[in-house]
């Protein structure tokens, strides 16, 4: 008696048929195309980290992260101002966008009629299409003057960055949160309502907890977007390389500093920007990892 393992059909057939060779070639071409992404990720890592390496080695990563003085002309590359700036801008953006976005998602998934939702949903997708430089442009001509007249100061501030970013990340929060809410079985709603809960209690106590993994993923992805945004942020935050805790102060972000300084940077300064890029890359990859983990755990469609 013969045992056959039948996992992939092509592995145990002898290719007598002349067409089989072509099949094999196609298989290999397709496989190569699939590995391009891997190659690209490898090259990106290698070149960004590689260019930043000299500064990393010379100053030590810890000194770079904890250093508070960013003065490239004196070869001083403390990146804490950019790290805290990025953190503040991102948190500010989430603080604005998460309640708005989740609220909007609840509205579309639970409250509005299907007709209204079908009308509004494409609008959100289109909002996601607006190029970041357009947001930056609007930020400079409309938002910065508005903040100046409201809060005083110059208007160029981390808050301006947060508001622009909040608008930019809103669509993805709304989309993913709404998809998750809609994917919940109708049974949940019926069961809860049948127990005499109000619609709001159903949403608050049953649906939102059940949708949490999806909402968390949407927030993590939005965070990645916010952390990495360059043009819009650079145009409105004032780019002051000083550690601050106040949203109304001007401040610099990692991506913004790279965008602002890359064109004039030479030698070690250039390498320092790549080192900044490396830290940015690491943060993003960690967020990606967490998002992928939550996705596979919660079996959320993203």
């Amino acid at each position, binding site marked *: 008696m013969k045992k056959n393992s039948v996992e992939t059909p092509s592995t145990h057939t002898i290719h007598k048929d002349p067409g089989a060779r072509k099949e094999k070639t196609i298989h290999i071409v397709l496989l190569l195309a699939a590995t391009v992404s891997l190659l690209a990720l490898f090259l990106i890592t290698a070149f960004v980290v590689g260019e930043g390496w000299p500064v990393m080695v010379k100053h030590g990563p810890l000194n770079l992260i904890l250093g508070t003085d960013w003065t490239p002309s004196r070869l001083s590359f403390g990146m804490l101002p950019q790290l805290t700036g990025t953190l503040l801008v991102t948190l500010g953006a989430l603080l604005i966008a998460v309640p708005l976005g989740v609220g909007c998602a609840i509205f579309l998934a639970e409250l509005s009629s299907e007709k209204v939702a079908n009308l509004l949903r494409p609008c959100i997708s289109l909002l996601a299409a607006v190029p970041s430089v357009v947001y930056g442009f609007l930020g400079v001509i409309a938002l910065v003057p508005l903040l100046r007249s409201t809060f005083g100061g110059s208007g160029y501030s981390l808050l301006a960055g947060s508001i622009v970013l909040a608008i930019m990340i809103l669509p993805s929060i709304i989309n993913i949160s709404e998809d998750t809410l809609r994917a919940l079985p109708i049974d949940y709603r019926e069961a809860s309502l049948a127990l005499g809960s109000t619609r709001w209690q159903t949403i608050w106590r049953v649906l939102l907890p059940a949708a949490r993994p999806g909402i968390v993923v949407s927030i993590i992805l939005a965070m990645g977007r916010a952390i990495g945004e360059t043009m819009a942020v650079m145009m409105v935050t004032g780019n*002051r390389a000083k550690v601050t805790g106040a949203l109304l102060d001007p401040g610099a972000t990692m991506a913004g500093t790279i965008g602002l300084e890359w064109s004039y940077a*030479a030698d070690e300064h250039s390498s320092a920007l790549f080192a900044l890029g490396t830290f940015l890359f690491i943060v993003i990859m960690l967020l990606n990892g967490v998002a992928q983990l939550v996705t596979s755990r919660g079996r959320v469609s993203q």
Partner: protein
Amino acid sequence: MKRFLVLLVSVLALSLGIAGCGRRSGSLTVVGSTSVQPFMEMLAEKYQSENPDIQVNVQGGGSSAGVKSAIDGIADLGMASREIKDSELAEGITPIVIARDGIAVAVHPENAVSDLTIEEIRAIFAGEITSWEAIGGVGDIVVVMREEGSGTRGAFEEIVMNKVETTKDSIVQGSTGAVMSAIAGEPNAIGYISLANANATVKLLDVNGVETTNENILNGSYAIARPFSVCTKGDATGLAKDFIDFIMGEVGQQVLADEGLVVGK
């Protein structure tokens, strides 16, 4: 679907093949400082109208990228709006100053102050003077600076700051235009900008009683200016030399003067 495969393969081959092939003859690539770029484009336009067979590609990227491109042979000419560094000279770079650009200290048009000494300017940008009240105005000073590495900033720090460190308490903008719009929107702001690009939305200050004009830069009474230069790896030859000769000739220098730059010795 066979076509699809053919397409795939040919695109791959194309992208690899193109990487290897050379440039057209009769063309020049000029890369570098975004401050010099607009002037270079005008020069290129003029030059090409005289020599229709020659293509001049002018690209931004910044002074350092420009010099680096010249060193690496990516560009025929590099453009710089700052002094060439010793490390770059050591790579065999030959710079030629084509013009100078004044650096003006600018404030909001409504600011009462219109004249500062160079010591006062230094103190303001060092963060020692933080209020206009100390120097005849009202309100707290908002300092606007260019980003680290910018030619304008480099020249300003070298000429004005005299090794004194600039304050961190400033707004940092990526271009003269962005500095001007920050100043134009903020009554208490002060910043430095390229004179050639200055416009009426801001007020230019006199320094040590001397008005910021090209004449005063040329006669040496206004000292804050930076060189605009082009550079080649080794001595310029062929087309590159021809183009440089054109820039340094009568027509080229006139184009630069018309655009508000300081030309001549």
